């Protein structure tokens, strides 16, 4: 067939008309969506008017509100980092929140792996969820880049949600959610670290359980008695063979868990100064904490090697009865975990040489995407969800919910003694010093300091002197 000019022009026109038709179709398709959004906004406006009633109803008993919204609900999305089981529990909570909501409906997506990478790329491409979980390490970074919605005024004007009553929060948790005097996240957990102990293993080794007066030395003595080689010798025995260990007294891993910061604080040192100008990790106090931690691994051999921990899972090694003591988050509930061999209980971590037992608090927040198309509906959802999560997770950094009764109600299966420990540990939980760009500091800390320290390639004193300038180069100028 000859391909002439007329045919080409006709084909082109035909194709362009098809394209226009298709685009027109797409436009038509999006028109109702736009209308829906407009209606949604109107609903949101109405919603904010009815929020008070809805919120009051929820607070009163969580029954479905009868307030008519007068339009379709705004569709919102939420991202969380929960694993399979935790996500199921969260979904059940969200289902109740959605059932009560009149102005919105939230769909959740859980991404336990690479959560922050996914969130950041989602924010960059404009596809991130309206509401998401963010932890203390990342909140200020996201806020400094304008990715989070400023919640200050919304929270101030909200008189209905208990989660919006800022007077009820511990100041430290609120400070961690604040960047340049603006509030960007409502905290739903602020957990101190506690010492999980396998009481059966203690009993078998003839070691008394920890007391509230335990010091580092007491802890070390117990850990040595509980570390046993294949011939039955314990780590405090001269004939002990550190190459053939079958049971360990304690466990840590090379990815900075439990956080070395905790031991530095307990020895009276700091990782980052309060004004964020220096990283005094080479002060005598800091070095004492760092070296103590490294010695547990390389000198006293009371914890498995980094590779063993990586391959076998460090909390799993505790629940399997291979490790007698484990520092974990208060909410980890290792005592009631499936497959826990022996009776476990949470105790306070031992006191350091500076006389304190400070631990690094893990704080997580609900935050809103600054580019959310429905910020008002997203706020209502965030406040409702935060209210609900705060009855699920422990410990919540709210004074009214940090009581023994409230925690026991949230986690009824846990031993009462563990709940007492959690309540007692709360005052000593402190947020890590975090600033925008902290990820760069943390990377140098982990790769240049913690990794060689735990592998025993150099002393804490030498490494600290070498790494301090590198860390300080990343601090805010």
């Amino acid at each position, binding site marked *: 067939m000859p391909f002439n000019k007329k045919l*080409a022009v006709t084909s082109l026109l035909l194709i362009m008309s098809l394209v226009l038709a298709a685009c027109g179709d*797409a436009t038509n398709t999006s028109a109702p969506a736009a209308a829906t959004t407009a209606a949604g906004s109107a609903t949101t406006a109405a919603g904010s008017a009815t929020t008070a009633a809805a919120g009051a109803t929820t607070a009163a008993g969580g029954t479905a509100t009868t307030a008519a919204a007068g339009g379709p609900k705004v569709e919102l999305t939420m991202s969380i980092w929960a694993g399979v089981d935790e996500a199921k529990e969260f979904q059940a909570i969200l289902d109740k929140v959605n059932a009560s909501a009149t102005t919105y409906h939230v769909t959740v997506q859980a991404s336990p792996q690479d959560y922050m990478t996914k969130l*950041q790329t989602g924010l960059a491409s404009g596809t991130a969820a309206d509401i998401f979980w963010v932890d203390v390490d990342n909140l200020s970074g996201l806020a400094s880049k304008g990715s989070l919605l400023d919640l200050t005024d919304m929270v101030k004007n909200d008189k209905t949600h208990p989660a919006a009553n800022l007077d009820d929060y511990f100041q430290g948790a609120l400070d961690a959610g604040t960047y340049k005097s603006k509030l960007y996240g409502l905290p739903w957990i602020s957990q101190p670290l506690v010492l999980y102990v396998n009481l059966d293993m203690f009993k078998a080794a003839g070691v008394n359980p920890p007391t509230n007066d335990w010091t580092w030395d007491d802890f070390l003595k117990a850990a040595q008695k509980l570390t046993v080689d294949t011939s039955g010798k314990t780590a405090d025995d001269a004939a002990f063979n550190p190459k053939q260990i079958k049971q360990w007294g304690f466990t840590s891993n090379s990815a900075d868990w439990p956080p070395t910061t905790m031991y530095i604080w307990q020895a009276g040192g700091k990782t980052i100064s309060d004004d964020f100008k220096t990283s005094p990790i080479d002060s005598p106090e800091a070095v004492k904490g760092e070296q103590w931690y490294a010695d547990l691994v390389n000198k006293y051999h009371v914890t498995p090697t*980094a*590779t063993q921990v990586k391959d076998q899972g460090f909390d799993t090694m505790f629940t399997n009865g291979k490790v007698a003591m484990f520092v974990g988050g208060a909410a980890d509930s290792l005592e009631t975990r499936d497959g826990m061999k022996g009776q476990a209980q949470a105790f306070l971590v031992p006191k350091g040489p500076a006389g304190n037992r400070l631990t690094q608090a893990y704080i997580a927040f609900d935050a809103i995407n600054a580019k959310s198309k429905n910020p008002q509906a997203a706020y209502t959802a965030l406040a409702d969800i935060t209210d609900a999560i705060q009855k699920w997770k422990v410990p919540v950094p709210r004074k009214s919910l940090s009581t023994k009764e409230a925690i026991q109600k949230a986690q009824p299966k846990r031993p009462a003694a563990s709940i007492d420990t959690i309540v007692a540990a709360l005052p000593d939980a402190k947020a890590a010093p975090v600033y925008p760009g902290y990820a760069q500091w943390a990377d140098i800390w982990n790769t240049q300091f913690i990794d060689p320290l735990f*592998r025993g390639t150099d002393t804490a004193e030498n490494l600290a002197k070498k790494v301090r300038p590198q860390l300080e180069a990343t601090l805010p100028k």
Partner: protein
Amino acid sequence: MVGDPIGDYLPTLIRFVVLAVVVLGVSVGVHYVLRNVFHLKRDIAIGFSLITPWILGFLIFNLIPIVSTFVLSFTDYNLQQTPNFIGTQNYETLIGSDINFWPSIRLTVLYSVISVPISVTLSLLLSLVLSRNLKGIGVYRVLYYLPSIVPAVAVVLLWRWIFNPDVGLLNLILSPILNLTNTPSPDWFGDEKFVLPAFIIMSLWTALGNNTVIMLGARKGVAGDLYEAASIDGANSWTKFLRITIPMMTPAIFFLVVVEFASAMQLFTPAAFARATPAAGRFMNLLIYTYGFQQSRMGYATALAVILFLLILAATIVLFRSQARWVYYEGQER
């Protein structure tokens, strides 16, 4: 909530159809312009219009990202905010003061320079064995190729177990020698001395299958009459191997060296999942990921990506320049 599958998918379907129609429209438009504006021959115009979709794909998915990478490497792009132009600051910081930069280059280049020749040599030798007409040779060929179709992450997890210092297979096999010489068991991924050998051993296992198939094809392509002629001239097996087999297979060897080197320099999956000690340095691609996605320093990460690109480009140019000395193409006069 279970959505409406048809309703949810409809906008995507419409976009898909519109895209296809637009691409077709552009193809026809290209034909029209070439014929009527540039007055090219019909065959040429049809040829260009037919490759238009691929050119469009290359522009959108390759060229624009490549150019963007170069441009972003001169900015402070942090994934969230509008990038600001900062000149050559990223490059200066990388080369001048980044503690991870030189160890990363060292590890990546050493890995590539050592693993590629070993892998290509082994696959050449293996292809000679597998090219023989033995009974059940097909089974062996399949067995050697199998590792290539195992997902990379599964391979790494498997090797993490093999390399485990306490219960791993490799140290178990090595234990008689280690005990005899009173040497401690190597902590393959935990000790910086063993990280590079561990990655090289792991890479051989997967690369060997693919490379051997290509080598086998090349070996089978060597004409039998060359060997016959050589036999008549009194050449022994070793001479035939050196004077016929190797020269005739050099195009395949050259291809593998170029492709494998570029791929080795860009190693990512094993590096990300092996969780080796960072004391040995981090592979360049992993460092790019760390800077770009974990620290949100995308401008800085793209500068490192540009350096990686330049290293691969330089190596490829050197290899291409060298082929006149050692690669023999059939029909070529020497």
